[in-house]
């Protein structure tokens, strides 16, 4: 006996099929955040201690 609802059986589709995409998007953004976090702390420390001027950081795409 099937546990699926009649509507799901008629459609022939179970889940929304977005799960794998969401899983990968979450993992990849998490991995990308690792170097970005370190860069953020390093550049903020440099700005906060006036090693580089904040205007110089904000004037470039790289922030440095």
């Amino acid at each position: 006996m099937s546990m699926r609802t009649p509507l799901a059986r008629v459609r022939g589709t179970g889940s929304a099929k977005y799960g794998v995409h969401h899983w990968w998007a979450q993992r990849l953004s998490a991995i990308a955040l690792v170097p970005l976090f370190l860069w953020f702390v390093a550049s903020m420390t440099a700005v906060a201690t006036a090693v580089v001027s904040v205007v110089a950081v904000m004037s470039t795409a790289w922030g440095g």
Partner: protein
Amino acid sequence: MDNSDRPLSPHLGIYRPQLTSLLSIAHRGSGIFLTLGTLLLVYWLLALAEGPESYARAQAFFGSALGRLILFPWVFALFYHLCNGIRHLFWDMGMGFEIQTVYLSGKIVVTAATLLTLAAFGMGYYMHGGGA
């Protein structure tokens, strides 16, 4: 029918706090704390956009005792969330679920986060010339 004396499934209150549960709660807590801290980041950026005087005021706030009292735990929360996030990535691959491994990785995460925080502030004070 009265069901009030039926047994309840064990919930948070019945467990002795353990490293595993505390770190799990700390991951949530640090995430919320980091989100709140981004409001201060927005304040800093707005002050920067407004001009030199308001930027100097913002810098003075972050350099004050209260500012540092907020910044230090915020940076620790950031490094803790970062390190524990990497721990979560291993779990997502199905690795490190043995009970000894879970405790060991937990201790590594706390140590790494502490060292990274001290390194960041140490570097900050060093670059600043050891003063305020």
